[in-house]
């Protein structure tokens, strides 16, 4: 197992290196640069001064190598969007906020979704099942989270005054953002849990009907549950990095100074240093998530064979 993990991580590093090269080229290939939003065009000499100041006049390969060299020294550069801090500082101050909101969202949505899904499955075809599956599940999936966010602010902050309209620094600041953010993953989780539990229940039921006895039930229970857990892991696994990188809508609506919005705005504003740093974060998060999912398959169902993983 250790060998497998180490092997996957090393390959991940190699992939990351190649991807950073790809993306470095990609972001310079996209038209428009970080200093183009000017109302009046700058005289060429002034533009040249700016490009020189930020090292953007150097050939691409030179810029990439400079970036790589700095990276190896732990220096990710200065973002164009927040020029008064370094990328390291920005990530250090902004990401924890996103992580806290994200962590709470995962806890609430995954646990909540699990419970909802189980309940819906166990009360299959009853009134409660319909409510949970149709209303809550569909609402979570079909309602965009900024609509939910707006409603939450309107009700709890403006009309009732119970909670703040946004901002960060107090424990109550997390409540509304987490509720808004957790709806969608909770609905997803509920759906998949319900589907998995149903398969178990019905397999159970069928076997019960044949009065085969307890031990048979336990075998098939373990059998089937494991099969149905695999799609759940496959779909809900990547949701975790998704949530941990935040959402620009949630952070804008609730004025959270987190990292989530930068994943969108960095590309829009051609903020080259920040784009590269965020790519690294994404790469590590997802790469690790995929590795862990694969390992989880084997844990859940020992019959699953993965390359390089001895039984």
């Amino acid at each position, binding site marked *: 197992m250790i060998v497998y993990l180490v092997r996957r991580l090393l390959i*991940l590093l190699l*992939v990351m290196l190649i*991807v950073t090269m*790809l*993306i470095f080229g*990609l972001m310079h*290939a*996209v*038209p428009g640069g970080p200093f183009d939003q000017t109302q009046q065009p700058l005289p060429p000499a002034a533009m040249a001064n700016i490009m020189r100041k930020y090292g953007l006049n150097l050939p691409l390969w030179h810029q990439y190598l400079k970036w790589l060299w700095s990276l190896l020294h732990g220096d990710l550069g200065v973002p164009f969007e927040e020029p008064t801090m370094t990328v390291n500082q920005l990530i250090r101050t902004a990401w924890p906020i996103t992580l806290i909101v994200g962590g709470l969202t995962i806890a609430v949505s995954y646990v909540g979704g699990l419970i909802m899904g189980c309940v819906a499955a166990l009360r299959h075809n009853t009134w409660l099942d319909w409510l949970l*599956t*149709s209303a809550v*599940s*569909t609402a979570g*999936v*079909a*309602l*965009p989270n*900024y*609509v939910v966010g*707006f409603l939450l602010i*309107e009700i709890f902050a403006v009309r009732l005054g119970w909670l703040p309209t946004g901002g960060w620094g107090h424990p109550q600041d997390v409540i509304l953002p987490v509720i808004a953010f957790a709806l969608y993953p909770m609905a*997803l989780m509920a*759906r*998949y849990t319900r*589907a998995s539990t*149903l*398969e178990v229940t*019905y397999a159970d*039921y*069928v076997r019960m009907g044949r009065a*085969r006895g307890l031990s*048979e039930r336990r075998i*098939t229970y373990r*059998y*089937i549950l494991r*099969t149905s857990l*695999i*799609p759940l*892991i*496959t*779909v809900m696994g*990547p949701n975790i990095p998704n949530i941990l990188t935040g959402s620009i809508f949630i952070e804008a609506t609730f004025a959270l100074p987190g990292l989530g919005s930068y*994943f*969108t705005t960095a*590309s829009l504003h051609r903020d080259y240093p920040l*784009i590269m740093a*965020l*790519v690294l974060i*994404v*790469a590590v998060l*997802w*790469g690790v998530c*995929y590795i862990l*999912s694969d390992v989880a*398959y084997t844990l859940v169902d020992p*019959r*699953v*064979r*993965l*390359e390089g993983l001895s039984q």
Partner: protein
Amino acid sequence: MTAVSLPLLDAPAVSSSFWHAAWYRFKRNKVALVSGVVALIILIVAAFAPLIAPYGYAAQDLTHTLASPSVHHLLGTDQLGRDLLSRAIFGARTSMIVAFGAPVIGALIGVPIGMVSGWFGGLADFMALRAFEVFTMVPQILMALLLISLFGGGLINLLLFLGVTSWVGFGRLARAQYLALRDRDFVKAGKAMGVPTGRLIFVHVLPNAVGPMIVYFVQQIPATIFTAAGFSFLGLGVQDPLADWGKMINDGESYLQVSLLVALLPVFCIALATLSFSFVGDGLRDALDPTSR
């Protein structure tokens, strides 16, 4: 014909009357049937939008913006005085094209890749895993911007873009399913009996594997509509004045306190579509899964 289940065979091989049985099971599921009808209605409305809608989707009337429902406009008008009912109908067309088109493309690319990598392992699996990683790491907006600069924006390009970027979800799901199922006893039995690999993959394993993929496909429908709406501001995707439910939600969000219909009609439409397709999907999955009763 219901499949006979023996203790050690959890997923028996499929017989030729399997599809008849599946259809029979689907029909008996009342919920799935009703939802199927609703879904069909939505698709028909989408297909015949120009014939059904009372007005065009771009017909503005600047003197009657944000009007309440009336005889002239059954659901009122939007911010530019366009008939909301017509916008919803035409929106069905655009949204259904996007909502189905992109996941279909994604599935067509992803499922075969996942199948092959999950079944054969080895180099195929290695390449597939690397492909998953690379595609996940590249920022979507950058890719979209490059695409627009090379090929222009518009609906077709949006479809292709979304399809190509969504294949990873299908790919991983298919891979996971095939990883789990390839060592089942019924597969081993099939191999021992000399069933060719192709037949094994498609005829024997696929119906067992397809359940979660259907659920995923259906859940991608609303997700795709929202993602599509999110890219329109880059120039990729639905451009004004074309009607699209996702874009109508985006545009209508700030009107929530001014005109409920403008803000919530598209939400209702997407919810209806999501619900009906979810139940159809559930019904399909139950119908196709030989073990579920």
